[in-house]
């Protein structure tokens, strides 16, 4: 069986401070910290790797400080990594390391190759622009120049993300958190990217609102066939959205496996603690 990945990450690492590899010796899950006493540097992430195929959703679970957000930001380009390789099938058929691109080339990838949905919708949206306008930004960045078609596509996306069309011309700043998240989803999917990163997509939303957004995300992932990476500390989210996942602790991946397997038969001591706490 051959699974052509849409996203492949290998050896991804981020060290804050002196990039001295001796820091690796006294950091990590076995040591219990990400900060090196030897060099004073923080190994936020090290040796992180995974693949995601189209139509698959991969979870990255960890508590705060685990490095999961660092990994996401390094792939997204919001942060520079120290080392590693990130390959996108849509970029030069996966033969160019995204991390080697200059910042403007990385920004261009964010138009139609790689989308990010942030925990705080304000990070992915312009609050002083209308819902339709936010989507128009993504479309015009991709070269759309026909007002009528831009509007139709924006309406279609907002409808798909269950945002009332009557609010299409309202400023996003007037929307509730859940509604803003839906607009962010619509914008992220506007140019049909093959890869989408979701960072704690429902954290901070009220439970009932979160359930609706989660449901929506699940439907969208199924219907669009994107390759998705879902970063979360919440097992319910990971369980609902992903088929495989990796567990991170103090910057390293401690375990990887099928999501249901990880939740019912965790191997690594840290995974067991984490699952046990979640189940409680």
């Amino acid at each position, binding site marked *: *069986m051959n*699974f052509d990945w849409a996203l492949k990450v290998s050896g991804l690492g981020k060290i804050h401070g002196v990039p001295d590899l001796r820091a690796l010796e006294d950091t990590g899950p076995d040591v219990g910290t990400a900060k090196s006493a030897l060099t004073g540097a923080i190994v936020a992430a090290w040796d992180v790797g995974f*693949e995601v*195929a189209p139509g*698959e959703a991969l979870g990255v679970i960890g508590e705060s400080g685990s490095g999961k957000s660092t990994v996401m930001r390094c792939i997204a380009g919001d942060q520079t990594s120290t080392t590693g390789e990130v390959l996108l099938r849509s970029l030069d058929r996966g033969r160019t390391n995204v991390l080697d691109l200059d910042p403007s080339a990385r920004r261009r990838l964010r138009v139609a190759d790689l989308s990010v949905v942030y925990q705080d919708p304000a990070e992915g949206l312009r609050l002083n622009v209308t819902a339709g306008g936010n989507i128009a930004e993504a479309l015009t960045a991709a070269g759309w120049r026909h007002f009528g078609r831009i509007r139709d596509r924006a309406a279609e996306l907002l409808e798909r993300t269950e945002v009332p069309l009557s609010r299409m011309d309202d400023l996003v700043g007037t929307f509730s958190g859940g509604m803003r998240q839906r607009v962010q989803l619509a914008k992220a999917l506007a140019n049909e990217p093959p890869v989408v990163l979701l960072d704690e997509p429902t954290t901070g939303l009220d439970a009932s609102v979160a*359930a*609706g957004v989660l*449901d929506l995300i699940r439907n969208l992932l*199924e219907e669009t066939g994107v390759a998705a990476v879902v970063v979360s500390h919440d097992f*319910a989210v990971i*369980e*609902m959205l992903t*088929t*495989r996942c990796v567990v991170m602790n103090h910057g390293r991946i401690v375990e*990887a*496996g*099928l999501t*249901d*397997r990880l939740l*019912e*038969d965790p*191997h*690594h*001591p840290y995974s*067991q*603690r984490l699952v*046990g706490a979640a189940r409680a």
Partner: protein
Amino acid sequence: MTEHIFSCRGLTKDFVLHTIDGRRVEALRGVDLDILPGEHVALAGSSGAGKSSLLKCIYRTYEPTSGTALLRLRSGEHVDLTRLTDQEMAHLRGRDIGYVSQFLRAEPRRGPLDIVTRAGVSRGMDRSTARDAAVHSLRRLNIDEKLWDVHASVLSGGEKQRINLAAGTISSPQLLLLDEPVSALDPANREAALDLIGDLTTQGVAVLAVFHDIEAMERLASRIVLMRNGRVEMSGDPTMVLDVLTQGATA
């Protein structure tokens, strides 16, 4: 061995509980089992015997500690389920191997028709074929058409269980694993469910099932495997095994 759809040897599962004191719990201690196409094998035994653990090990919800588990795919190829990568296993699930558990997994805001149709689509069916099959199954299992669009979370346990069964059986896998699939059903609905399951074996699906219901076992099983302490204790003709079981209960 090639005529079997499924064949496991020495399947073992140990849990090492780091959160306690690293103690080891042995759930399966070496299980051998063969299943032919069209066979309905029922697993019997008291709780803790390892019945559910066996199903989960085959489906890779538990990762077996050792042993092999060969499955013959629709393509004719044989694969060892214990050696597949996560992606390969995820791909097989729902296609060549099906699993129906007692619990409805995280489907709160979809209606039964939607759930079962999507299950079909994810197995590779086109949307309209899946929908037709879903309609057929739901009718067969007596799910009132008025409920087809109602969010599953508000339905009864029995209704959820039947939806689960419909979703799990919408496309015929090579091997179907059933874990207490009718426990919440009243007699009439149970009847319909067992009927559906029975039909699957007629179609050539190999079934490995856990029922606590002796009647169901009697009715469906072509063979009963009695498990105890993580091992197969006895395997054979249903009447014979059940006699042993009931004798053991009264003794």
